[in-house]
């Protein structure tokens, strides 16, 4: 190997210290300005009128209703997406069929579609003048501007999270253990509960965490399908907007701080998961 090649190699693997420090400083400064500072600002604003006002804002009947609605919506959205995610990952990882890649692309679609469009789509389908609107109103079934609409919009926006987490995991695992279970006489359900689910559980939990965080924070899609009825169909992000537009800045940021806390909790659980089961997660991700 020539001397020149050696020099290049060295300069690639070991940057001068100054470059390394500069890079680290840039990254840290970037994180501070774009993540930490806004985060702190939310809490400073939330407590701008004192702790009493903060808790009063959270104890307000409309705020409680918004928190409850957010939890209900996220519950159903996460439930549906968990079932869907497992089914989709199962189909993609364990079976061979035509159009599989197309299916994977479809699952990723919500990542590339603006949430506003996601909301409008449901208005076009289920609104009074939508495709199914006439039938729905004849039978007095309410979808948009009611809870089902909120859940649908949230499901649409969050459905890649669980599936995306499980597909590579299950692909890496292959079907050997399932075959073994079947040959030992397990039924389909037994195989699922005792072999598949234990194998994917940490990946699944990880996906559910992310899915839940996104579901609770979703604004664009639910804004379109919510009727904005205070105390009835306003979720937390929508309630924040309402308060903000009402010049109730401290109250708006108080509710926003709850959402920020949710991000913290998600991050904490995620870190915990990676710390305690990181080897397992990594092992499942293609080292088998």
């Amino acid at each position, binding site marked *: 190997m020539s001397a020149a090649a050696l020099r290049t190699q060295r300069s690639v693997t070991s940057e001068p210290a100054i470059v390394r420090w500069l890079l680290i400083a840039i990254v840290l400064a970037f994180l501070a300005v774009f993540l930490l500072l806004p985060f702190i600002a939310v809490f400073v604003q939330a407590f701008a009128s004192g702790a009493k006002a903060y808790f009063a804002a959270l104890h307000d009947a409309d705020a409680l209703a918004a928190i*409850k609605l957010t939890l209900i919506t996220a519950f159903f959205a996460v439930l549906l997406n968990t079932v869907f995610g497992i089914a989709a990952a199962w189909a993609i990882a364990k079976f061979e069929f035509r159009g599989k890649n197309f299916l994977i692309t479809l699952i990723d679609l919500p990542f590339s579609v603006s949430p506003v469009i996601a909301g409008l789509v449901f208005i076009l389908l289920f609104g009074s003048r939508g495709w199914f609107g006439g039938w729905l109103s004849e039978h007095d079934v309410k979808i948009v501007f009611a809870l089902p609409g909120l859940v649908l919009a949230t499901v649409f926006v969050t459905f890649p999270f669980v599936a995306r987490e499980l597909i590579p995991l299950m692909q890496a695992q292959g079907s050997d253990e399932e075959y073994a279970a079947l040959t030992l006489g397990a039924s389909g359900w037994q195989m699922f509960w005792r072999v598949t689910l234990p194998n994917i559980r940490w990946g699944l*939990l990880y996906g559910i965490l992310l899915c839940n965080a996104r579901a609770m924070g979703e604004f664009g899609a639910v804004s379109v399908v919510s*009727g904005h009825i205070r105390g009835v169909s306003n979720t937390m992000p929508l309630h924040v907007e*309402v308060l903000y537009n009402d010049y109730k800045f401290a109250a708006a940021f108080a509710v926003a701080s709850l959402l920020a806390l949710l991000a913290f909790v998600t991050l904490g*659980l995620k870190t915990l998961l990676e710390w305690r089961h990181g080897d397992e997660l990594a092992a499942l991700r293609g080292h088998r």
Partner: protein
Amino acid sequence: MHERAANRPNKWNPLRAWLAIVALPLVACAGGSSSARAASLLNVSYDVARGLYEELNPAFVEEWKRKTGETVDIDQSHGGSTKQAHAVIEGLPADVVTMNSPLDIDAIADAGLLPNDWATHFPAAASPSWSVIVFVVRKGNPKALRDWSELVKPGVQVILPNPKTSGNGRYSYLAAWQFARMQPGADAAAPLAFEKKLLANVPILDIGGRDATTTFAQRGIGDALLTFESEAKVVVATFGADKFEIAYPSLSVRANNPVAVVAKNADRKGSAQLAQAYLQFHYGKVAQEIFARRGMRVVDAGVAAAHAAEFPLIRTFVVDAAFGGWAKAQAEHFATGGTFDKVTAEVKR
């Protein structure tokens, strides 16, 4: 299941973990929900009317209870006026709509949800309250902005929301147009030239009225904010009379806040009578007093007289008379290719 639990001590399964994260808080706060609801109304309203209805609704509920012994719930939905109208058209089950522009109720009527002659169903063009476009200026009015002609001078910055997306902006634009048209010696081209000079002084065209207020009052941009008198009073009260004051131009536009029963929804729900009574209540002394205290001009002569000091006399015109109706004004000025598009195309900075 038991075998597995024994084989893997201390490991929680995802389902249970998920229940802990998602479902427990849900159960914890689901208490006391879904009790049988009394007769209810849904009032779909515009963005900045929240405070108003927080005060007006309990007054109505109390009066209805006294009169009939019946307890009613009134739900409120607020948002941009046009967005709200679209929601009603798409199926938001409003019993009544209370808007800040007749255009939006016309749109609901066009969709067949209420009769086209809705404006004749209640007094004063079905508008229990109204407002005018005024100028909010910085304390002491340092640039001496007292009339439309002063807004178009070089070096003045004017904040108004986009006329295409906000009622507020539409009214301001039409008021400026009418002012220019009424000037002595004005020819047919004068209003357009006047709007060009005005729009050239607008640094930011916000989407809605509240955004424009935030731009002006919180971010401190501009010398004058064009907005409804009621909103102007909120700005002065919220951000301080030591910072802002209101200037009344020589001519302004009467901006009605119309109301209507959404007949199709109310008939189906059987709430038509209640809806009618609720809107009628808007014209009573109690509600009119609430309107006036919140900075809106009222139609009840007695209440108006009692609050005369807070509402300076101002010469106004109505869009129907001056512009041949909202539909015509909309088509000529704000539709694609209308005068507003022409003005903005030439003002492009």
